[in-house]
């Protein structure tokens, strides 16, 4: 199953901006962040295909996961 993971802001430090991952069926965002060495508590905003996501949601083929630490502006 192919999943795209996009990292932003400080999550890019020491990591790639974007990962095209080939993952086994039944994968959650929690599995992905663990594999990238990111703690759940560090993630302020989690989007799956641009919509509010959930760490335990099972991903499906072609999903895009976007992860942000706390950010803001105006």
């Amino acid at each position, binding site marked *: 199953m192919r999943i795209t993971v*996009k990292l*932003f*802001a*400080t999550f*890019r430090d020491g990591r790639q*901006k974007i990962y095209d991952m080939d993952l086994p069926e039944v994968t959650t965002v929690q599995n992905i962040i663990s594999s990238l060495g990111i703690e759940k508590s560090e993630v*302020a*905003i989690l*989007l799956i*295909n*641009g*919509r*509010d996501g959930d760490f335990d949601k099972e991903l499906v083929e072609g999903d895009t996961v*976007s992860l*942000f*630490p*706390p*950010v*803001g*502006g*105006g």
Partner: protein
Amino acid sequence: MYGYIGKVLRINLKQKSVNVESLDLENAKKFIGGRGLGTKLFMDEVDPKVDALSAENKLFIVAGPLTGTNVPTGGRYMVVTKSPLSNTIASSNSGGFWGAELKAAGYDVIIIEDKADEPVYITIEDDKVEIKDAARLWGKVVSEVTDELKNEMPEKSRILTIGPGGEKLSRMASIMNDYERAAGRSGVGAVMGSKNLKAIAVKGSGKAQVFDEEKLKEVNSECLKKIKENGVTGAGLPTYGTAVLVNIINENGVFPTNNFQTSVFEKADDISGETMAKDYLLKKSPCYRCPIACGRIVKIEDMGLEVGGPEYETLWAFGSDCGVSDIVAIFKANYYCNEYGLDTISVGATIAAAMELYQKGYIKEEELEGLSLEFGNADAVVEWTKKIGKGEGLGAKMAEGSYRLCEQYGVPELSMSVKKLELPAYDPRGIMGHGLQYATSNRGGCHVRGYMISPEILALPEKLDRFTLEGKAQWVKTFQDLTAVIDSLGLCLFTSFAMDASMYTAAYNAVCGTEHTAETLLEAGERIYNLERLFNIASGIDPKEDTLPKRLLEDPIPDGPSKGNVHRLSELLPEYYTLRGWGEDGIPEAERLSKLGL
């Protein structure tokens, strides 16, 4: 007197008179200061029907009670006047250091009246206030004027000035201070230009008194702690500036592109805060007593410049809104806006509207004088910014703002504005509360009158579903009232990512000896909001203008994560009016007004 200095400097440019009056403290406290006090003074002294660019309009430059204190970010001043762009109330605030210096010189308010016969500038050194001939400064750009006046004035003076944009009465002209800080929106620079006033240089040696120094120390360290611990104010903004929003707004599919024809921009990362920090950032640039330091200094190599970098809004306006992904071109357009004294949001959005007018065949090739107006053309955003600044050719038409430009071609609906003020960088079709806030902001299409992006996208203070309507009207009202408080105190809105109403209350009470609770302070915010509304109605603004451009109400976003959505304003507005205590017609009703003491 605590917090407030108690003095108003009234300058009549026609008579060349300078008078110092005492501040009506009761009035000041009722409307806090800054934005609120400025509006109250305007209402007391000027008919809101006044022609914004006539001598009868006045400029109120107002500090807050916390301006010049050591409460974090307490350096802001507010320019209140009638807007020549929207005909609504204009209150544009700016950071930097100028506002704090005004307080140090011993004034809460400057009132500028009438019009000078010839260009003048004002110098203020404590009690010594002079009106001087500005012939040699007229026509000069912001950095030149600032350098010249800094040379002439005592060391560490602070300079506020307009650029050629304001002189030429562009309705998008800003008032600039400390080189690159802007009271940007609503065309306040044109009002200053219409009075033949080029600049105000100020140097002060005093300080406002504080009611309870010990308590204030305590409150300040609590504020600083909260700001430091908060992920946005302690890490996100210091590292990336506001530009960090580019990617997140784009990932949500609400990053307006090609004049809101769509809302995903494929090349967003090229113009993002991450890219700017990695490849172009030289250093951060803070305002007065600000631990956040969101300002950026960047290099523009081919021009040999090290200058203020663009904010998020600017990256969007000259970037995706014009289809442009060349970040250096955006730096340049931003630089010219700062030098000509123009609002980057309105200028970028007006160029985007012009691009659509050209795309659809309304603007003809022969009007372009050899320049491009194609979406995606990086040179175009730089060159048209210069043309607008100089008021040349089609640039002179564009200098009137996107609404008047599109109206001239018979298609005002192509202007993405509310009450003629260009909308900022968030497509409300995918952010319901934010759209309601655009429609009801007292100065027109503005994001910083109630920043609903915070809960609807950034999950602060909690995450709301951006597509739902439930509870949004109440959130918008509360955010608008709280923002009116922060703007009136003289603090930066960005503190609100970390601080809540109780902390603003504690700071205000410690400085001024007031006995506010969070509730009474928010009520003051509501009072201010209603007074601004009364201004707009008296000025002739029809509440039917509490709306959004037709495109955003009728044409769904064509692609991306927010695809298929329009803004559902008509479902939100009645509830909002009810919560505000306004009639179905949007007019404030006597009962709420009298409860608010209006």
